[in-house]
């Protein structure tokens, strides 16, 4: 099946194409060089913008904590029922709804309408991996993948405490990546979630875990080394210490320094950029942190922008979420210690524009977006749903691209917060090309997805077409056309078809001698057999299995 998109303007930053008028052609789900052959279908685009499908490298879309969030957010679910989709070709599909925590089906459909075709779940617990993969199998229209949370598990803390050689750590990480069918390694509050189980209420970068006496710095550097040596393309994806705590700016700066030049991704940086200046002892450190990010090319970040309104926060960071549970709105929350593995905390939250702290969080996020200079090292996220649902992305894009709009919004916020941000003085406006970098080209590059995020021959035909519109929020709210693997799934902003996605995983070489140790550990400590913890390929995507990226290790 050959499909041709004619008369579009191609935005492909990976190949330096900035609004180049050319046809885009694809055959059976892959982009090919343009031909004069007769196409099975042609779409006349009339100058619309053609980009690769969007890639979200950090959005909580699957796993046990999302179901706990759904359980708590029934009012949100009732307020957002199943949409009527007159153009949809399928029968009633039992697709669910919801805004803050949409159902699997609604997640796939709402993302597709925005032009996204690949999304990564950034916090999968090993013990919950089977559940997360079952859920991802039910997400249509998106390719997915998941980052495995490590660094709070008792197995690795025991290894580190015992002074195990790095090779053994690496073997464990390699085994876990394979066993849980994961794509990268995430660290959440390194060692802190574990420390909370021993009743520590905070754990700073150089503070020792009360039981293992291991510091977050050691956990971080050990795992940075592991993924580097195993050749995992995505660097350690770090949710650092002291999330949300005023004064965590110092921790964040120290964490960047701790990487010592090795690649490290700091996620939802906004929540880690708080100073303690001013009467309220809460201030923006975005400028300091952005300067440090600019000066350290080994560092990449995503923002975790706060968007006003009702949402729910869901994190493996039970230590932090327990601290925040008093702020819950509506007033209910769930916390859980999980399986000698990690934990989770789910706290509904409403960001209010008249609230000083919330308004300043909003400004801090935007400051980071505008002060970090290299668009290839910063990614557009709201840490869905923690800073706000992903459906707010078009609004966020407009805030980045339209200074007048941004300043008009700022003027409506809490007055004290306005006085505490330098946002009004920042003149930068993102270009369309930069948005394409943040949302497609750069995520593909940092994830090591060579056939995604661009429109050159050989790329997967995941394509988003947006009608040009000076109102960037309107432009990005409803894609004109979206193709998933070459199949047309969205027309004029509405889902018209469902395409099955795949799940990306990485595989590394590792020393299988670790397996007998793991068998003993699982038998005695966990109370579950290692072989039952492990997922087979056939358990992914309804038996279709994963899309495997084989890592080439050996680097150090």
């Amino acid at each position, binding site marked *: 099946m050959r499909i041709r998109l004619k008369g579009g303007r191609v935005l492909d930053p990976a190949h330096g194409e900035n609004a180049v008028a050319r046809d885009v052609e694809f055959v059976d789900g892959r982009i090919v060089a343009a031909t004069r052959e007769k196409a099975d279908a042609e779409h006349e685009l009339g100058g619309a913008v053609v980009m690769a499908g969007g890639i979200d490298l950090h959005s909580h879309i699957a796993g046990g904590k999302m179901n706990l969030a759904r*359980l708590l957010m*029934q*009012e949100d679910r009732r307020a957002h029922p199943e949409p009527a989709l007159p153009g949809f070709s399928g029968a009633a599909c039992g697709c669910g709804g919801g805004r803050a925590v949409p159902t699997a089906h609604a997640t796939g459909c709402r993302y597709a309408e925005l032009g996204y075709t690949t999304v990564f779940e950034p916090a999968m617990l090993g013990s919950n991996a089977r559940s997360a993969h079952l859920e991802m199998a039910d997400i249509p229209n998106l390719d997915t993948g998941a980052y495995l949370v490590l660094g709070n598990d008792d197995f690795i803390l025991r290894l580190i405490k015992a002074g195990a050689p790095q090779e053994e750590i690496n073997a464990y990480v390699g085994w876990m990546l394979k066993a849980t069918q994961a794509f990268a390694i995430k660290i959440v509050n390194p060692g802190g979630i574990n420390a909370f189980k021993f009743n520590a209420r905070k754990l700073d970068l150089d503070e020792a875990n009360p039981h293992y006496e291991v510091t977050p710095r050691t956990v971080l550097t050990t795992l940075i080394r592991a993924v580097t040596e195993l050749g995992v393309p995505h660097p350690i994806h770090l949710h650092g210490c002291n999330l949300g705590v005023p004064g965590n700016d110092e921790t964040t700066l120290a964490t960047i320094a701790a990487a010592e030049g090795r690649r490290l991704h700091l996620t939802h940086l906004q929540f880690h950029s708080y100073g303690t200046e001013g009467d309220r002892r809460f201030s923006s450190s975005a400028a300091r942190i952005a300067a440090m990010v600019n000066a350290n090319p080994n560092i990449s970040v995503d923002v975790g922008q706060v968007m006003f309104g009702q949402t729910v926060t869901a994190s493996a960071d039970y230590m932090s979420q327990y601290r925040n549970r008093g702020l819950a709105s509506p007033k209910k929350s769930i916390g859980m210690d999980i399986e000698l593995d990690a934990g989770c905390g789910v706290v509904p939250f409403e960001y209010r524009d008249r609230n000083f702290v919330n308004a300043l969080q909003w400004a801090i996020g935007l400051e980071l977006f505008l002060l970090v200079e290299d668009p290839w090292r910063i990614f557009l996220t709201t840490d869905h749903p923690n800073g706000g649902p992903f459906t707010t992305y078009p609004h966020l894009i407009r805030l980045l691209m339209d200074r007048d709009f941004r300043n008009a919004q700022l003027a409506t916020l809490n007055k004290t917060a306005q006085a505490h941000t330098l946002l009004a003085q920042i003149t930068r406006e993102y270009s369309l090309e930069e948005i394409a970098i943040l949302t497609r080209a750069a995520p593909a590059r940092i994830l090591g997805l060579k056939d995604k995020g661009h429109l050159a021959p050989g790329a997967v035909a995941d394509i988003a077409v947006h009608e040009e519109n000076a109102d960037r929020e309107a432009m990005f709210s409803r894609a004109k056309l979206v193709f998933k693997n070459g199949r047309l799934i969205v027309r004029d902003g509405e889902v018209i078809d469902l395409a099955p996605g795949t799940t990306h995983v990485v595989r590394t070489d590792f020393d299988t001698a670790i397996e007998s140790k793991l068998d003993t550990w699982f038998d005695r400590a966990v109370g579950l057999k290692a072989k039952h913890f492990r997922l087979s390929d056939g358990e992914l995507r309804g038996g279709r299995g994963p899309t495997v990226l084989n890592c080439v290790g050996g680097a150090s």
Partner: protein
Amino acid sequence: MSVVLRLKAPLAARLDLEGLTPAALAGKAPAEVEAIALPHGGRSVALGELFAIRAGTEGRLVLEGGDARLDGVGAGLAAGEILVEGDVGAHAGRGMAGGVLRIGGHAGDELAAGLTGGRIEIDGNAGARAGAAPSGARRGMAGGVVLIRGHAGERAGERQRGGLILIEGDAGAEAATDMIAGTLAVGGRFAPGAGRGMKRGTLIARATPDLAEGFADTGTHDLVALRLIARRVPDLAGLIAAAVRARRLVGDRLQGGLGEVLVLEEGAASPA
């Protein structure tokens, strides 16, 4: 349009009328009203299939006849009036914020669940959990008035946190369980287990209820407050009218609660 709806036949499956309020019908042509989709059993049907429709008084929705499977009557009502001549099913007046809902027959479970304002009057009996928290919600009714002329089922006022529930008949088992605030007054008798887990709030009774463990008797008092309540809350005047004194019990002390149970004692009424 303002409409009178007459059920054409007894319902074979549950029908959910949530959101069908005078405000939602205002400005709609008869054909539009007929086409409103309503969840019915496992399907969705057009309103016109089940009801005969004619124009009525502005700001008022009238349901001629009723049915115990007619759920969600008046749910979401914020203004105006809904009148039902017969029975209704579950969730009548759920989440209602204002306006008036009058039911001539009986109501099913969770009448007035999550009510925040407005007034509900029902001539017959109410099912379980009148004025309680809707499914999954943290708190029960927070404001408004619910007048039940018949009896109420179990756990009336469960997690109630405001407003007034007046039951002229009897209250079922475990009334006011985990009550947070507000008033539950019962003209008839309380079934056993009332008041368990009460934090605050007031139960008004004519005879000492069979309370859950955890209430302390503070004796009989001449409560000026009673007369004030009777004057301020006309709905309670009838119940309180003759009472000048009340026995006061406080609980649930097993949980550090400070709810009060006022058992009215009749005497020479002082001039109101």
